[in-house]
């Protein structure tokens, strides 16, 4: 058996204890692995430029006619065609475009007045990034407690209720979720406030009943009080503090943080639906596996508290795959905010893409899908590479 022990397990505590040269070879191996990932990434990005450019070249209709409208004279059309480089062979246009991509110059928009595409994208990126950041933070804040408690009570009422609700979340298309949120929180905000009050009262009554019953059974009333208290707080907060959400539009941070947050709150909620479901399911599964392991049993046998067992013994080792999926989600959200930006009329990259596809403004579409795809693969590759530093086992199962 001794021969099968992996290097990671036998690694001595101090670096000085390593045999001379082994540390260097391992580092060289890692470097070579990272290098191969980078080369792969570059080759894929090359493929991405190819698709972004040539797919849009297949678009039916004449881009010059789209830009100038039906009243343009042939001379005007010829001049615009020459200035866009459309009279030259496709390969030259592609190389030209590539040169622009490397220097961050994506040409100018077809729709008049003509502006540089990179400026358009740069102006809209912060909105999308804010949406993504808030969505990930909020989803994690909701998903982690849900997953921990579901894993702790696996198969019980709470777990089954949570998983069936999340099942519904997964089946809900983004635009349906967004419209439902608008209907509830914008059009019927009063009904939501009333529901919050009702929830708080019901939770209060149930909590008191549960706490008294726990006392009579001489069990600790704390879990009931904590859970019920949280529900009362949420309900009360909805009743007392629910702000007026705008139906659409975006308020920049410079006009006040509160106004900014209320303007992105509903879009972010709509985006979290699916992410909460994904994160919770994944973490719950990992946690259930972790809770069945011997070190958790040992910790329980020593009489450690449930909180310690759940958070320190199981949550920490289970976070690993969650971190990967969070990274992937960030990448996906860069293209995934399209629907929500469209519904709430937010000036992000997604709504720019929708508008440009509709107007046939192909330089913008090319640039937008290239940037989105490039960011997406780069994020994914960075996660892969970061993984090799975080978890040495990956290096060993994927030898170069």
């Amino acid at each position, binding site marked *: 058996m001794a021969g099968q022990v992996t290097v990671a397990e036998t690694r001595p505590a101090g670096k000085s204890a390593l045999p001379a040269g082994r540390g260097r070879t391992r580092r060289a191996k890692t470097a070579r692995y990272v290098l191969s990932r980078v080369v792969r990434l570059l080759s894929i990005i090359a493929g991405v430029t190819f698709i972004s450019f040539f*797919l849009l070249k297949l678009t039916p209709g004449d881009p010059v006619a789209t830009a100038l409208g039906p009243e343009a004279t042939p001379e005007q059309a010829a001049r615009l065609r020459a200035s866009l480089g459309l009279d030259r062979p496709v390969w030259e246009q592609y190389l030209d475009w590539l040169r622009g991509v490397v220097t961050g110059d994506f040409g100018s928009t077809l729709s008049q007045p003509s502006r540089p595409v990179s400026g358009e994208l740069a102006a809209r990126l912060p909105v999308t990034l804010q949406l993504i950041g808030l969505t990930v933070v909020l989803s994690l804040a909701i998903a982690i407690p849900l997953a921990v408690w579901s894993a702790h009570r696996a198969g019980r009422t709470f777990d089954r209720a949570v998983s069936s609700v999340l099942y*519904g979340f997964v*089946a809900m*298309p983004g635009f349906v979720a967004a419209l439902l949120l608008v209907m509830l929180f914008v059009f019927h905000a009063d*009904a939501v406030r009333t529901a919050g009050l009702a929830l708080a009262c019901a939770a209060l009554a149930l909590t008191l009943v549960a706490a008294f019953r726990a006392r009579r059974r001489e069990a600790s009333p704390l879990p009931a009080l904590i859970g019920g208290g949280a529900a009362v707080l949420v309900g009360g907060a909805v009743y007392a503090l629910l702000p007026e959400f705008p139906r659409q539009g975006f308020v920049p941070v410079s006009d006040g943080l509160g106004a900014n947050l209320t303007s992105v709150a509903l879009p972010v909620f709509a985006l979290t639906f699916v992410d909460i479901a994904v994160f919770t399911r994944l973490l719950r599964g990992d946690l259930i596996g972790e809770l069945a392991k011997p070190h958790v049993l040992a910790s329980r046998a020593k009489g450690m508290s449930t909180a310690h067992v759940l958070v320190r013994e199981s949550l920490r080792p289970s976070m690993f795959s969650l971190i990967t999926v969070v990274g992937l989600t960030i990448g996906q959200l860069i293209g995934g905010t399209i629907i929500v930006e469209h519904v709430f009329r937010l000036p992000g990259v997604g709504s720019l893409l929708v508008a440009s596809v509709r107007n046939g403004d192909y330089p913008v579409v090319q640039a937008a899908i290239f940037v989105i795809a490039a960011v997406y693969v780069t994020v994914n590759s960075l996660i892969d590479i970061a993984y090799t530093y975080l978890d040495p086992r990956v290096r060993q199962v994927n030898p170069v």
Partner: protein
Amino acid sequence: MTVPLAKTGGARVPDAVWRWAIVLLGAILVGVALSTPMVLPVVRLLLGALGLVFAYAGASRLLRARFGPDFDPGVWLAGSWLVLIVLAAATADLLPLPESLDPSKALTEPTYAAPSAAHLLGTDQYGLDVLGQIVYGARVSLVVGLGGVLIGGTIGTLLGLTASYLRGRVDGAVGWGTDVLLSFPPLVLLMALAAVLEPRTRNICLALGILVIPSFVRLSRAAGLKVAGQPFVLMARAMGATRRRILFREILPNILPSVLSYALLVVAILIVAEASLSFLGLSIQRPAPTWGNMIAEAEAEFQTHPFLLAPAVPLFLTVYSINRIGDFLRAGKEGD
């Protein structure tokens, strides 16, 4: 969840009575929701939903008591919904529905009518029947979902299978192409394809097919690699079987079950993808109804006419049902 606060020592009420009582309560709530036009629509909707939850909880208890604890009424409900929607889509032309396709034939109908006996789900801005449009929209959703999977699944599986058996340069090229296609977020690639193709049912199927090729390649390649290493494949090679025979008679039948159960889930994903594309106005255009473009049209008016959002319900139910049945089949396969 709904355990009654039974008093200790008192006469116990039989379980069956409680189960029936829950069903009855649910039915009463649904009845109240349907028959009180005075109350706010949101309240009625909530009451109706609550009633359905109670009815479902009671009915599932009754059915479990009758058919044993393993009986899953959710899967049966999901299955019957899918049968219903497929039948409705297939027989749409024969159903006695009010005019729902041609605005010029609905000139005498009231516009934005509330649900009534003549129009079960009301009418839209042209006076077209919403229920009828939902039925015709189901046709588009199902055709596009199944067609996309058929195209993408066939091409993807063949590519993945070939790559897994030939390895080497073919595998590298297929893998690179897969990674390039996967580096576009799905909706972005779909929009780019929609910008190029004319929005017709056939082209939408094609775009959705291209969208799902890479995931089928990955799945069938991984499954194919596992099968290709098994002794019976080696034996077939030793007996001099041709490459085509090994691929299609030895390996393909063994990876087909996992490909098919994945394909079912992909149908649901594609239905949502088409609806999203339609919602953005890049798929089949009005007045031809799809669930997505109906909801897009409702977006401007749903504050005053919430019933125009009705197509969201069959969309949700269809996706939910497909997911539910897919998971049920997968769990059954793992259990064996």
